[in-house]
């Protein structure tokens, strides 16, 4: 919509004003993670201070956050990988053979509250002595990633003209290789969206990891929560730990902003 210049300026000013409450918590968190305990609780907040690394040292050296980080990376990368392997063909099948009824089951699985199937997970995996194992965690995180992959990818596959695939098959490609060599590369942006989103969701997941992991496989969000409950007052270190979890997700969102937004709003606009 064309607006009068005076309106545009006014709107711009409002937008900048709203940025402050959105951004302020981030800046405060980032700054505090480099402050000493004394500087953190001093008021008014110090914007100019000597940055110290002691909070990060505490997190990485005393608390062994590298170990939890490794766990988080293993769980999210492996679960996203297997979700793509299972989910891409499934999305293809839904798009090509119009299996909309089945796709509803997949969507609903994503919307269900995790709490409603959490207890059997706990029962089964403790009976199988798979508590605190990567297998249990990766499987549970796949439940988050799998429906997401299908949900994002099916419309992408659907938008590639069927003739392209048929032409390739006439030229002697099997359906599988037509899928791998033609359809998948053409749906590149979709794969990026699905991968980024599933990674972020898995990286951020709290509930499954809280129930299924202990010391050996504990992921970052749980580590930060535990940290919070016994060092209540050491806010600097807690903020440093929070920055560690936040960084990869924020960086990914910045790089793939277009895809992330598209993936998350797609269902909505269609709906």
């Amino acid at each position: 919509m064309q607006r009068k210049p005076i309106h545009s300026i006014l709107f711009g000013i409002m937008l900048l004003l709203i940025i402050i409450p959105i951004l302020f918590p981030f800046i405060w968190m980032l700054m505090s993670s480099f402050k000493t305990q004394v500087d953190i609780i001093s008021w008014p907040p110090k914007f100019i201070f000597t940055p110290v690394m002691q909070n990060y040292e505490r997190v990485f050296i005393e608390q062994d956050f590298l170990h939890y980080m490794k766990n988080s990376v293993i769980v999210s990368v492996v679960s996203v990988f297997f979700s793509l392997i299972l989910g891409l063909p499934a999305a293809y099948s839904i798009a090509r053979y119009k299996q909309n009824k089945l796709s509803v089951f997949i969507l609903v699985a994503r919307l269900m509250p995790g709490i409603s199937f959490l207890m059997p997970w706990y029962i089964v995996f403790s009976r199988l002595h798979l508590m605190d194992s990567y297998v249990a965690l990766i499987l549970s995180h796949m439940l988050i990633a799998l429906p997401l992959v299908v949900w994002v990818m099916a419309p992408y596959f659907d938008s590639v003209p069927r003739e392209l695939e048929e032409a390739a098959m006439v030229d002697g490609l099997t359906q599988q290789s037509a899928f791998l060599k033609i359809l998948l590369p053409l749906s590149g942006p979709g794969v990026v969206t699905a991968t980024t989103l599933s990674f972020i969701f898995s990286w951020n997941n709290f509930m499954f990891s809280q129930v299924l992991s202990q010391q050996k496989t504990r992921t970052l969000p749980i580590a930060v929560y535990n940290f919070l409950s016994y060092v209540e007052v050491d806010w600097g270190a807690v903020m440093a730990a929070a920055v560690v979890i936040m960084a990869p997700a924020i960086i990914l969102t910045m790089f793939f902003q277009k895809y992330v937004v598209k993936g998350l709003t797609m269902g909505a606009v269609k709906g």
Partner: protein
Amino acid sequence: MYCAKKDRRIAVLILLPMLLVLFIFVYGFIAWSLRISFTDWNSILPNMTSVGFENYQRLFSSQRFQTDIRNTIFFTLFFLVICIVGGFFLSYLLYSKLRGESFLRTIYLFPLSLSFVVTGVLWRWIFSPEVGINSLFRMMGFEATFGWFTSTYSIGGFNVALIALIIAASWQYLGYTMAMFLAGLRGIPDQLIESAQIDGAGELAITWYIILPLIKPITFSAMIVLGHISLKIFDLAYVMTGKGPAFVTDFPGLFMFETTFRGNHYAEGAAISIIMLILVAVVIVPYLISTLRGDSE
């Protein structure tokens, strides 16, 4: 033409591994939870004696669970209204193409990629009595310190302590609703607006009579998405406030977690989780029906 029957077989075959995973680990396990919720399994040892609806009856008559349901409803209402009104307002401001729009949009979307754990930690700190917002109030001359999420004050059943949680959750999802609305606004054909402008309609009239009706489906989707998030809220409250004094910030998810994994009351926990499922279903079933109808048209 393809042979439809053979096609369907292939399709199902490709889908099978994934459907199996979901049918066992989601739907099967939900059925299992449902089964447990009708038993007397309220200790460490499995006990599958059926007791009918006893667990549900006990829950609904418990003070704590009543508070939980009330909290969930209030939290959901405020969260929805703030995100939808605020998100629409933001998208509306961004609608006329401004310089630096993508920069602004990125910043509004920052909180969305955070884990609820990070949001919880961050806002717990901002609302903590010693540091954070209270220091600001003290500086402005208010001596009395507001307890925020530890306050036990309640207005007509609404626990004031929830405000802190509502602010944190809305902060995280405001950008998301903005992005949804912005996508919708951009989908409105320019000619429609332009012709209305030529006819002399002012900006308010255009918004009220053209834009709002056209983005109704988006408002509906946003309500579904946000509603199902807030009805199953767990992580944020668990990390940020816990159940709070006199359960002022308690939610069914927290109750379920505590009673199951700390207290070994499996049957009671299962009953809570089934009630949560029903709450979420009330929101998503109409959405699914409308989606399915849209597909068959």
